[in-house]
């Protein structure tokens, strides 16, 4: 009996070692790859009661219920309360794509000041959430598309990033056809129309194939739209001199200098501006932009001179203090971004930053005001003159080819102090100087109102006649 017992104990020991090895080396790696929630450090991110609920097989259920609760907060406009729920839901169930997509949109778009300007300090957080969502749900196009869309539509800068995410989305087989068009648009913004053409050709082939298989009206419309986009693109590439400048034949035969392309000669936008601090934290921006009666929006940025990861006309959106999903943006830093709408070749806009002290704390001593225009974001009728990279655009004072490599942009920067912004000291409202910053070429327009109500002056000369 003793011998049998010893044998059995030996068998038990062998089985114990076997199960340990099997689990550690064969089962757990596969579980981690396929079935783990992939939350990283769940324990460090949840409260004890939440850990209890989440770890005992309850996490997806709890996430679903919490997300319902978040819907209620959305309805009430209590956006701040939604943030922790988004984080909790993504930790509990990182496979719920809806939470990531809605959360990203919410963070990037819904935190605004009294004039509906987004709090852009949150955008790195939205991007961080998008990156996390992509990592946890790399089987679907959705998070890649949403992150790409945030770059493309909200940030409107660093276009290679938009292209990267949209290309990643494109690799996923579940991407909707209608959404694939956005990748073409991203290629345009990235200054790469040939890739957009190739994308359209691919979409056209697929649309044609779909129409042959299912000859329905929507499928015919889909095909026609792609073909129209392709036609337009090819015409624009020809008229803007893209083929002349970028094909071997065009370059060898010197087409661009020989023929009259729309982007020739470069058009002087003649940007000028005067910024007046009319009241504490209230600015009036007036100036000129000699480009058509409508169709231009000039980006204006007011930010700390030493803004973390700041760069000309923007910031490093993926860097800085908010590279992880932290919902509280760093306090004490200021970043305002808006657009100056040009009408009848001038603009006049009041920027009131006095009503949102949490967004615009003006805690630092030095600030910069920046004005920026890139043809990459221009509508097609203006791009026809300026080209995708600004080859048809110039500005006697503010043309810049350094801040965005490969692009000719308008960039104007002004330094401004806290005293000027706050109207303190020598700039006091009680008898002090009125802070005024202006470019040397500024000329008074005589209009002191926002031009929104003005009639469009159609007698303004078109771009080509210049």
């Amino acid at each position, binding site marked *: 009996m003793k011998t049998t*017992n010893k044998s*059995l*104990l030996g*068998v*038990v020991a062998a*089985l*114990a070692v*076997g*199960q*340990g090895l*099997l*689990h*550690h080396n*064969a*089962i*757990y790696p*596969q*579980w*981690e*790859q*396929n*079935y*783990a*929630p992939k*939350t*990283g*450090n*769940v*324990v*460090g991110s949840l409260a004890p009661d939440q850990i209890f609920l989440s*770890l*005992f*097989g*309850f996490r*997806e*259920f709890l*996430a*679903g*219920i919490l*997300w*319902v609760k978040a*819907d209620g907060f959305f309805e009430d406009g209590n956006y701040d309360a939604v943030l922790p729920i988004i984080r909790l839901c993504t930790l509990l*169930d990182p*496979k*719920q*794509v*809806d939470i990531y997509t809605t959360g990203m949109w919410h963070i990037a778009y819904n935190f605004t000041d009294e004039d509906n300007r987004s709090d852009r300090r949150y955008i790195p957080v939205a991007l961080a959430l998008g990156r996390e969502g992509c990592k946890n*749900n790399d*089987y*679907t196009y959705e998070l890649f598309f949403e992150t790409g869309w945030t770059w493309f539509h909200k940030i409107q800068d660093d276009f290679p990033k938009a292209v990267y995410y949209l290309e990643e989305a494109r690799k996923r087989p*579940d991407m909707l056809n209608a959404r694939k068009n956005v990748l073409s648009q991203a290629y345009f913004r990235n200054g790469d129309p040939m890739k957009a053409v190739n994308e359209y050709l691919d979409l056209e082939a697929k649309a044609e194939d779909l129409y042959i298989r299912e000859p329905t009206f929507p499928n015919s419309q889909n095909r026609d739209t792609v073909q129209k986009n392709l036609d337009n693109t090819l015409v624009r590439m020809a008229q803007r001199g893209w083929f002349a400048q970028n094909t071997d034949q065009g370059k060898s035969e010197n087409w661009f200098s020989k023929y009259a392309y729309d982007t020739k000669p470069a058009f002087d936008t003649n940007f000028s501006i005067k910024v007046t601090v009319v009241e504490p934290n209230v600015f009036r921006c007036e100036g000129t932009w000699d480009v058509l009666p409508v169709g231009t929006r000039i980006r204006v940025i007011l930010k700390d001179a030493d803004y973390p990861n700041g760069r000309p006309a923007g910031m490093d959106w993926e860097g800085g203090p908010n590279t992880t999903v932290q919902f509280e943006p760093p306090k004490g830093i200021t970043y305002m971004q808006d657009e100056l709408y040009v009408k009848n070749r001038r603009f006049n806009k009041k920027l009131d930053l006095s009503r949102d002290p949490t967004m615009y704390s003006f805690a630092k001593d030095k600030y910069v005001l920046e004005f920026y225009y890139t043809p990459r974001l221009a509508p097609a009728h203006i791009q026809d003159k300026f080209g995708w990279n600004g080859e048809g655009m110039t500005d006697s004072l503010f043309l810049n080819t350094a801040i965005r490599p490969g692009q000719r942009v308008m960039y104007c920067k002004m330094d401004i102090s806290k005293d000027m912004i706050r109207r303190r000291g020598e700039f006091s409202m009680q008898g002090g100087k009125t802070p005024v910053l202006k470019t040397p070429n500024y000329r008074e327009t005589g209009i002191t109102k926002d031009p929104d109500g003005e009639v469009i002056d159609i007698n303004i000369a078109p771009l080509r006649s210049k």
Partner: protein
Amino acid sequence: MGAISAIARTTLGEAIRRKVLLIIMLIGILFLSVIPAFSVLSAKSELTTMISAMFFVLRYTSALIAIVLTVYMLPNEIERRTIYTILSKPVQRWQFLLGKYLGAIFALGLMIGMMSFLMITMFYLFQHPEASKMFELARQALLYFVEMSLLTAVAMFFSTFVSPLVNFFISIGLWLVGTLLNPLYESISKNNEMAPVLKSIFSFVFSLLPNFANYDTKNPIINPGQAIQNETIYYLKITGYGFLYIGILLILGILIFDRREV
């Protein structure tokens, strides 16, 4: 083999007549029946909430049945002295234990089967899913059955030397810990601030304890679209793991029961 089969059949008969087990199962069935009604309250994620809640009820009810069924099995035989009439016949103790275990597994399988059938039926009635989805649900229910068989072996092992009440708490505690092992290990292995020695200790414990978390594969069912690699191989591995661990526990149980005074 005949003795084992006879004991298993008797155990199965006893189990399905035990009111407490039937009540637990009926409560589970009641919950499974009402879940679809609650899931409509969950905007945009009805499917997630419904499947998640159904699996939750199925898993926890099954665990409770497995533990309650097993913890009283041996002690009752000893207390009522019915074990003497069995062991006085040409029946070895190991045959008795194995028969009891198999009987418990059959009873458990029957109850899990009934609850799973109801769950899949309710799911079909409310969601009209594709056949593949129903198959996924059935497969997860089957994995829970393997998990509960392991849990039954745990309770059976402890029932050879501890009282039913103590066994109840040990088994349920071990199961709860076992369901946490993988997520905890994942968190700890990614925690760079933890001392390496603590990580090693946890790794040892992780390899030693029965790991019930392996059987919870519902995430891809709840969030469809994920590409699961080598799915079948994984299911075979965890089933093999379950059999290995059940073997360990039964052999240890037999060794202890063999030396026990009854």
